């Protein structure tokens, strides 16, 4: 009897201390995701183990359909793992939550709401204990941060792709999540806009004292190296697994122009290219 009580106490103590002791912002343990399809069960990702530390920026990279978005979905809570579990900020992920801000692949702004309202509604439903004035202030500061305050009354349909992307990022930042999840956030942008968005993102991350954990899905090697601390390379699906995790030991702040001449950059770039591409030229 006494033993069970002490066991229980131990469990409670563990539960309380876990977020303190555990430095990981995200902990993916033995995660497998399968879907039922008309042709039978399709396993997207299999036996994935991944830990992401607080304040770390990590990219998931791989070919189309390799399950990187699915894996991301298990962190955001949009996809439930068939096996294994995911913890974020010390709590098991059971569904989407305001501690994890998401920037969707296709921006996902509500087309009938103005830029301002798009952010306000997100703030309004996640920051319930703020006063109306505080909420408005939060929307304003985040819109100014992405330099879209002048466009606040426009509808998403009146904005360019890059501007929509900035609204989506401002919306994710406004709810002040501990973890930021970016699903191919810059995929639809032209090279120039993309490049300046990279710098913008890091600026925001710096302004926030590098405390936000960022996980991003991408298939752009240069983007992954410039932004991230680690790059998780995935095998091709079905039943995709982690092929290799590549550390990016480049000092920050990184300079977009100089970094490409860095020896370490070139080594990492080569390594990633080798991991992702089997053939480099056509056979005669």
């Amino acid at each position, binding site marked *: 009897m006494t033993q069970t009580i002490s066991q229980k106490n131990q469990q409670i103590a563990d539960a309380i201390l876990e977020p303190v002791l555990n430095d990981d912002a995200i902990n993916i343990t033995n995660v497998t995701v399968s879907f039922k399809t008309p042709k039978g069960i399709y396993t997207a990702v299999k036996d994935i183990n991944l830990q992401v530390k607080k304040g770390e920026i990590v990219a998931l990279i791989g070919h189309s359909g390799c399950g990187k978005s699915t894996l991301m979905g298990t962190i955001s*809570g*949009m996809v439930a793992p068939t096996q294994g579990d995911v913890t974020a900020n010390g709590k098991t992920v059971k569904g989407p939550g*305001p501690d994890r801000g998401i920037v969707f692949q296709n921006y996902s702004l*509500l087309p*009938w709401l103005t830029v301002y309202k798009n952010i306000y509604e*997100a703030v309004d439903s996640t920051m319930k204990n703020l006063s109306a004035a505080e909420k408005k202030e939060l929307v304003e500061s985040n819109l100014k941060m992405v330099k879209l305050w002048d466009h606040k009354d426009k509808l998403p349909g009146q904005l360019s792709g890059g501007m929509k992307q900035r609204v989506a990022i401002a919306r994710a930042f406004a709810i002040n999540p501990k973890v930021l999840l970016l699903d191919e956030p810059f995929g639809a942008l032209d090279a120039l806009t993309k490049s300046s968005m990279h710098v913008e993102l890091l600026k925001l991350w710096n302004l926030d004292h590098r405390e936000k954990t960022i996980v991003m899905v991408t298939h752009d090697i240069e983007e992954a190296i410039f932004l991230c601390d680690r790059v998780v390379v995935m095998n091709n699906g079905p039943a995709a697994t982690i092929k290799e995790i590549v550390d990016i030991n480049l000092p920050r702040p990184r300079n977009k122009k100089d970094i490409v001449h860095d020896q370490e950059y070139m080594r990492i770039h080569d390594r990633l290219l080798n991991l992702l591409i089997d053939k480099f030229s056509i056979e005669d």
Partner: protein
Amino acid sequence: MKNKLIQTLLSVGYFLAGMLILIGIWAIISKITKNEVPSPTMTLEVFKEVIKQPFQNDADVKGIGTKLLSSLGRVGIGFTIGSLLAIPLGLMLGSSKIMMNICNPIIQILRPVSPLAWFPLGLAIFKDSPQASIFMIIICCLWPTLINTAFGVSTIPQDHKNVGKAFGFSTFKYVTKIMIPYSLPHIFTGLKLSVGIAWMVIVAGEMLSGGSGLGNFVWEEGFNGGSVAKILVAIVIIGVVGLLLDKAFSALQKKVSFTA
């Protein structure tokens, strides 16, 4: 600016050309039938006479305007009640597959029933013909709005739903900020169809029910009164009012539409 002016002038031109052709065909038919069908000019004379005192409202003599308003009033009441029932029901059906599966057979059976078939039922229930007309309008306004609303809600893209999930929208916020705004253009398609059907049905209903209204005008003053010209006058008025209703709802629909 100049282009817009030309566009407007062109569309006015096309409209006038269409009207001229219609009146031409009408005049030819009138000639062939040896004025059994009155010519446009004869009809115009009768029209002028009819609208001399449009809002006369004595016990035994009522002006065409009064009749028009009474028909519009009934359509308005029936359409409003029907829509207030159909929209919430449609939102519910669209968001629940189970509800949809249960209600779909009911809708499929009741929808093809001619609105006029509901009239005697309404008469049996309300023992009053104007109320029976309104009952009939309510029923015929239900289906298009119900079906279009449910369709709108059931096609909300996963992207929009995900926004609600990711940012923890309450059910109320989801309904008011995502479900209804997305479905609004569909709802208005339903409303436009409903009001069109209601306007068609009211004339038939009033022919059956007697009393006041445009249908009564067609039947009593036109057919029984032996004036085919009055029937034609009524047809023109009914057509023009129907067109205006349709245009009004199209404008409203445009207003609530959004570009993705």
